[in-house]
C-alpha cells in the first residue's frame, strides 16, 4: 500500500467539520506530481487548494463537484500506474464503510451543557460513558474547545468531561480573586454537581496548576494527573504573552500573540483569531483575565509551586519542545516515578498541535493507573 495515497478532506480550522468540493484540477488517469494542485475545497470560511501528496496517477475521483463531505472523508486516490485496480477499489470501499454522515456528526454529537455551581454558571461538554471519569482543564484564556482533537478519541474508554473554567468560554465571567484556589474550588464543586467523585485529570498550562491544587487539597478526588505544558512546576512564565493577551482587542494585536502558542504559527488562521476575539469581547472577560494574572503571575513569576505533589499521585508530564510560554525545563528533576514526554515540533498547545502523539500517551497512562 506504500504507493497508494488517499486524499481526504483536511481540517483547516477549529470549527471546520465539513468541506465542499469546488473544482477538480486533474482528471482520472492524469499523471500528477507531488505538490501540484489537485482540487479546491471550501469550508464555511475559506476556499483552498489541496495539493497532490505524491507523484503518480490520479486513479479515482471519489468526490464529485458540489459534494459536501465531513473532515477525513475520501476525495480521491493517487497511486502508481502499476497498482492493480482491485487494490484501489478495496481502499475506496474501506473508506466508504467507515464514513460518518455529517448530520450524525453534527446533530447527533454531544452538545455542551450548563450547570449551576455555587451560584455560578459553568459550561461543560461530556462524552463517553463508564470507567473512572476523565476531566479536561484548559489553560489561561482557553475554553473546552481546546480539547477538540483529544476529547472524542479519549472518550471511547470512559466518560470524558471538558469544562469552561470560570472567567472563560461560556461560563460566568465573574471571578473574586482569580487565584488558583478559586479555580480549584469551582472545579471540585463542579464535580459534586455532575456527580463525579474522583477523576483522572488532564490539565493544560494554568489548568495543570489547578489540577495540582486539587490534588494537594483533596487527594482522594484525583486518580491521576497528566500535566500538559503545565504551570505549577517552576517560576518562569512568559508574562508578556499573558498581559498582551489580556489587553489585545483587535485581530492585528491578537494574531502575533496566538502565534507564540504553536511551533507552527501557520496554524493560527483567521477563524482561530476571530473565535478568540469573540470571547475576549464578552463583558467581564478582560477583568477576569487581569485578576488571574494579578493573583497567579504577578511580577512575571508563577506563584503556585506544587512540584512535590507529583510524587504522591500517579503523574506524567507532556511538554512541547518549542513551548514559548512556559519553559519545558520545569520538567527536569522530577521524581523518577513521573514519566516526562518531550514532543519535538510542538509548542505550548501540544495537545492540539501533536494530538496524534498526546492522545495515546494519555490513554495508555490512564489504563496503567492502579
Amino acid at each position, binding site marked *: 500500500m506504500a504507493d497508494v495515497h488517499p486524499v481526504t478532506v483536511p481540517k483547516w480550522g477549529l470549527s471546520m467539520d465539513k468541506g465542499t468540493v469546488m473544482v477538480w484540477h486533474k482528471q482520472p488517469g492524469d499523471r500528477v506530481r507531488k505538490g501540484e494542485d489537485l482540487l479546491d475545497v471550501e469550508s464555511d470560511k475559506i476556499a483552498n487548494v489541496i495539493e497532490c501528496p505524491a507523484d503518480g496517477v490520479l486513479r479515482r475521483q471519489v468526490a464529485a463537484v458540489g459534494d459536501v463531505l465531513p473532515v477525513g472523508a475520501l476525495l480521491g486516490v493517487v497511486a502508481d500506474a502499476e497498482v492493480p485496480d482491485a487494490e484501489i477499489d478495496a481502499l475506496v470501499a474501506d473508506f466508504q464503510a467507515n464514513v460518518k454522515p455529517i448530520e450524525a456528526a453534527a446533530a447527533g454529537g454531544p452538545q455542551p451543557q450548563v450547570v449551576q455551581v455555587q451560584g455560578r454558571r459553568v459550561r461543560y461538554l461530556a462524552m463517553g460513558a463508564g470507567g473512572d471519569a476523565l476531566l479536561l482543564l484548559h489553560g489561561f484564556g482557553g475554553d473546552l474547545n481546546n480539547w477538540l482533537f483529544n476529547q472524542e478519541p479519549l472518550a471511547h474508554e470512559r466518560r470524558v468531561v471538558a469544562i469552561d473554567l470560570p472567567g472563560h468560554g461560556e461560563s460566568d465571567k465573574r471571578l473574586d480573586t482569580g487565584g488558583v484556589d478559586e479555580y480549584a474550588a469551582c472545579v471540585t464543586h463542579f464535580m459534586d454537581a455532575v456527580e463525579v467523585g474522583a477523576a483522572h485529570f488532564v490539565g493544560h498550562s494554568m489548568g495543570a496548576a489547578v489540577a495540582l491544587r486539587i490534588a494537594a487539597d483533596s487527594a482522594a478526588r484525583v486518580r491521576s494527573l497528566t500535566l500538559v505544558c503545565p504551570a505549577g512546576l517552576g517560576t518562569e512564565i512568559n508574562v508578556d504573552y499573558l498581559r498582551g493577551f489580556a489587553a489585545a482587542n483587535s485581530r492585528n494585536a491578537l494574531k502575533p500573540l496566538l502565534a507564540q502558542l504553536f511551533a507552527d504559527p501557520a496554524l493560527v488562521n483567521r477563524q482561530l483569531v476571530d473565535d478568540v476575539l469573540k470571547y475576549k*469581547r464578552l463583558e467581564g472577560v478582560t477583568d477576569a483575565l487581569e485578576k488571574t494574572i494579578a493573583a497567579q503571575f504577578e511580577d512575571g513569576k508563577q506563584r503556585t509551586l506544587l512540584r512535590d505533589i507529583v510524587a504522591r499521585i500517579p503523574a506524567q508530564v507532556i511538554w512541547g519542545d518549542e513551548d514559548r510560554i512556559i519553559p519545558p525545563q520545569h520538567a527536569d528533576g522530577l521524581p523518577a516515578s513521573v514519566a516526562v514526554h518531550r514532543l519535538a515540533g510542538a509548542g505550548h498547545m501540544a495537545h492540539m498541535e501533536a494530538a496524534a502523539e498526546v492522545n495515546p500517551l494519555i490513554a495508555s497512562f490512564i489504563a496503567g493507573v492502579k
Partner: protein
Amino acid sequence: MAREISYQQAINEALRQEMERDSTVLVMGEDNAGGEGSPGERDAWGGVLGVTKGLYPRFPDRVLDTPISESAFIGAAIGAAAAGMRPVAELMFIDFMGVCFDQIFNQAAKFKYMFGGKAETPVVIRTMVGAGLRAAGQHSQMLVSIFTHIPGLKVVCPATPYDAKGLLIQSIRDNDPVIFCEHKMLYGVTGDVPEESYAIPFGEANVVRDGKDATIVTFGRMVHLANEAAGELAKKGVQCEVIDLRTTSPLDEDTVLESVGKTGRVVVVDESNPRCSIASDISSLIAMKAFGDLKAPVQMVTAPHTPVPFADSLEDLYIPSAASIQTAVRRVVEYN
C-alpha cells in the same frame, strides 16, 4: 451562551441589556412604546416593524412614544444626550432624515468641536436603510454616504446578528453621535449570538472570507450577496476575499489596503447610488494609497443614478445582485 437569533432580536437584546446596565439609556421614537394613550394598546407595536417590542413593559419610564415629528424628537434626543442621558432614537427610515438634518449635522455633530471639547453628545439614531421591501422611492434609500461625509458623526452598518448586537452596544456606550443603519431586508436573518453582553470596536472591518485572487469590499446587506458571489466564483477556481467594513465612519483603511496588497484586484460593492458613495470613497482610497499594488482598474458595483423604482421588476434590477458582483470580479480577474 451562543444561540441562533435574528438580526432584529439581536438589536432588541442589545437595547435591553444596555437599559439594564445603564439607567441613563432611553429609547424613543414613533410607536416605540406602542399606542401611548390608547388603553390596551401599550407595547402593541414596538416601532413600525416591532424591533423595540417588549422593552416598554420592562422599562415603562424609559421607552417613549413621540409625535410624528422627526425634527422635534431627534432634536429632543440630541438635547437629552448633551444633558447627560444616552438616548436611542428610532427614526423609522433614513429617507426622513432630511427634516431633522440641521439637528444632526449642525448641532449634534458640532457640539464637541464648538464647545471646546467639553460637550459630549452620546446619542444613537437607529434607522432603516436599503431597498428590497417594495416601499418605493421615499422609504428605500441607502443614504449612508451622506452621514459618512460629516465629521463628528459615526456611521455603523451591521451585516449580521452578531455584529448588530455588538455594534449597537458599542454605539450606546460611545460618546459621539452615531447613525446606526439597520438594513430592513436583514431583520429576519439569523446567526450565532452570545447571550452575554459584548461590544465590537468601531473602525475594525471583518474579513468574512479569505481569498487570494480578488478583494470585494462592501458593507451591510451587500456582504451577503458578495459572499454568495464569492461562493459561486470559488466553484470556478476564483478565490475572493470579502471585507465587511462594519463602520463607514471611522473607516478601517488598513484591512482594505492589506487585502489589496495581497490580491491587486478590487471590486467595491455599495447598494447606494454611485456618485459620492462609499464605493467611490473606497476606490479613491485605493487609488491614492495602493496604486502600485493594482493589477486591474477598481470596479464599482452600485445601484444606478436613479431614485429607487417602485415596480418590483425595476427594483430588482436597481439593487446590485450576486450575478452583477460576479461579472465585476471576472472583469478584474481577467484584466491584463
